[in-house]
């Protein structure tokens, strides 16, 4: 309960901070809207400002915004004249799908590679994995994305260039899931690549450490097979740091999603945020930041729960 109250306070602080930062940004949304029209006159600008409450003092704007957020109303987009809540709901699932797939891929492959390299450090595959981890670590996400697009969508044309669905797609439910999955491969891999690298290094180090410990020696002494020792006894303990880091990094994974969504034209929250900054569409931007904050908080709560599943000895706040 205390954790949940803390989280709510944190989210409120995020709202106030974001609102203030956006207010401090130079550039008037009215000018952007008028500029987009290719013409403008003072009356039009004043009208746009009045329409969106931009002529009110800062404190009033903040007060009424917080008041509305508490009631579940995130306001209306300046640009689309549509409620921010419905815009965000449209974009939330693609982002969760992308980030979830990337995270899952990163943890599964990262841990597998880590365990393998920890057990057979001299195997050529381990060397290859180490090099790839280094490459994954040092390549910016957008760069990986562009390379993968060129290779898989342009040179060999196995996978689509971007988007979430084939625009000309026509088929049943299962086929449409396959279609989405095909579109998901490249962006999820791009986003996950960096983290595969990190988690493999992390789980390798912690695996090496755990394999030296007394209980592993005991397990071996009991005559258990190497497989059981490694995957049942050692891995369970070695994976805890990975879960910690994954939980902490959820925020950076979300910000990585912004770049990946832009590169792959994935219709998620990241692209909505990016477009909103360029349009100075403050209500949408605030809404996206708020939802991201909520997602990060939820991810951290989930991390705590996963801890307990892996290691029942851990008691959160206990």
């Amino acid at each position, binding site marked *: 309960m205390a954790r949940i109250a803390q989280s709510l306070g944190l989210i409120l602080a995020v709202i106030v901070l974001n609102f203030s930062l956006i207010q401090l940004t*130079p*550039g*008037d949304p009215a*000018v*952007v809207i*008028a*500029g*987009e*029209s*290719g*013409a*403008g*006159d*003072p009356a*039009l*600008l004043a009208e746009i400002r009045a*329409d969106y409450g931009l002529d009110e003092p800062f404190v009033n704007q903040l007060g009424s915004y917080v008041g509305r957020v508490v009631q579940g109303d995130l306001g209306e987009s300046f*640009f*689309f*004249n*549509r409620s921010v809540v419905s*815009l965000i709901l*449209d974009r939330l699932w693609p982002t969760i799908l992308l980030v979830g797939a990337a995270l899952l891929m990163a943890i599964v492959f990262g841990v597998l590679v880590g365990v393998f390299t920890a057990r057979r450090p001299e195997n*050529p595959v381990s*060397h*290859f994995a180490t*090099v790839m981890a280094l*490459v994954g670590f040092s390549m910016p996400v957008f*760069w990986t994305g*562009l*390379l993968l*697009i*060129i*290779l898989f*969508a*342009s040179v060999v*044309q196995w996978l*689509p*260039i*971007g*988007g979430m669905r084939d*625009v*000309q797609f026509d088929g049943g439910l299962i086929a449409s899931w396959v279609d989405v999955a095909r579109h998901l491969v490249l962006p999820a891999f791009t986003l996950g690549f960096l983290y595969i690298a990190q988690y493999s290094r992390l789980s390798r180090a912690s695996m090496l450490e755990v394999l030296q410990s007394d209980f592993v020696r005991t397990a071996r002494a009991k005559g258990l097979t190497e497989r059981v020792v490694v995957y049942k006894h050692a891995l369970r303990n070695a994976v805890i740091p990975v879960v910690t880091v994954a939980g902490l990094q959820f925020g950076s994974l979300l910000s990585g999603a912004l770049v990946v969504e*832009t590169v792959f*034209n994935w*219709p998620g929250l990241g*692209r*909505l945020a*990016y*477009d909103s900054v360029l349009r*100075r569409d403050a209500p949408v931007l605030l809404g996206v930041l708020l939802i991201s904050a909520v997602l990060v908080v939820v991810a951290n709560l989930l991390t705590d729960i996963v801890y307990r599943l892996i290691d029942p000895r851990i008691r959160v706040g206990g």
Partner: protein
Amino acid sequence: MKSLRFFLVVFAALSLFATACGSSADEITDSATDAVDAVTTDDAEPEAEEVVEEEVPDEEQQAVDTSLDEETLEELGSDDAEDAAVDTGPVSGGTLVIGSTQIPRHFNGTVQSGYATAVPGTQLNASPLLFDENFEPQPYLAESWEVADDGLSVTLNLVEGAVFHDGEPITSADVEFSVITARDNHPFKTMFAPVTDVATPDDQTAIINLSQPHPAILLAMSPGLLPIIPKHIFDDGQDMKTHPRNIEDFVGSGPFKLVEYTEGSLIRLEKFDDFFIPERPYLDEIIIEITPDANPIVLGLENGTTHVSATLQPAANILRLQENEDVVVTAQGHEAIGPVNWVEFNLADPALSDVRVRQAIGYAIDREFLADVIDQGISFPASTGIVDASPFYNADAERYDVDIDKAKALLAEAGYADGEIELAIDFIPGGQQPYAEYIVQALEEIGIDAELNVSADFPSWAARVSGGEHQLTVNQVWNWGDPVIGVHRTYLSDNRVGVIWTNNTGYENAEVDALLDKAGQEFDVAARKALYADFQDIVADEVPIYFLTQPPYWQGYQPEVQNPPLGIWGHMAPMHEVWLAQ
């Protein structure tokens, strides 16, 4: 062995990098500018043979001619798809996928200008008139029209039997409602400002009454500028700019109806079966796929998953597509939008208030260099504020071809022989920095010490320039069809209203005011052209603005796209004549 394997792995990784750098380094820099394109609107049945042969002559006619590769066109002529087309003639059916970087706010063009709204908007809504490549009006929803002898009214005779997407008839009351809505809400106030009222003696006749003769009203009835919207849906007292039906359950009058809009990513349009032109449109479906930049569009054109796009900037994309034999690339189309890049002077600045200084700057700048080198040949030199394709372009206006000696002499005459002028150059952040950097160098040649003034983003730049805080700035302004809409605003002395893209130079010339006023009321094209020629000569002499380049809306399309949208409004016109060769 081990070190050999390691070396191989590293080598493979490096070669992957190198390959990628070669083909994609140029596409990362991006500054998506808008684009627009047009539709062929011949009322004649589009015979396939004509289509093939028209391609080349049309290109050559273009005033804005182009490095457009003739090879590509010849290829096109001999393409298998084309041969098949010759045999079969136009075929119905198929889905056209348009790539665009522009996100519409909604689809109601009576209250919203711009390419983003107009591309889907002109498919969803019909307008009274279409325009051919000579800027001449053609029938559309109005089967005929007549301008009164005194120029104080325009009578439209609407086609019989036209209906909206909900089956309600399109009548003169809808035309009246649309004209008045546009007059009171559209950002281009000059389009319909002189309209006093619209009389509707019967359902098929609308008489637009004007307070003064107003020839611009014809181009203002183009598809992108005056969509006819249903009065029975919109006339409910709500604010038209935020009307929910601008986007939800959209009911239009055009050849396609709205099926799906996912904000900022996808627009799906479906053939409207009861469209008032029989047998049109040919296409079953149009999909506008919106992407944050042009890179996915270029890949889509190369892969064949995107059929046509006019939002291809920056230059590297266009050059890359030109090398691709499977994609047709052309500068033709969208001439009416007519963007012009120019340098404008703040005439309140002490040094720049001297016309000799401005002329000297004109002689120092090489616009051919801007077009050919900075823009890598994808833009064309501009010598006046009216684009070459317009019927009112004056080819004889003074051009200020580069002449460094003359520039220095003018500066000396103005009292700045030892180059004591210091200038700061503003520019629109994003795409225009290379222009501004070139101008700094060009001015050094004549002894002027110039530097860049970098604004954080478009709103900050706009605030500086409209507030008169700058000395000189690179700018881009659009013609928007008739000069009354897009050209007058920059020069009229009473249009100094402190907003971007009005008279931001502080220019004031009573003769120019009078010429523009007269030209704006002259229905006779030849007489009007003479007035605009005088206007362009005066502006060229006084140099409140020095014109640089005209960047066309390059478009790329698949060879199977027949009657591609290459008209003066480009994609901002209905695509009911477009069809896909099998």
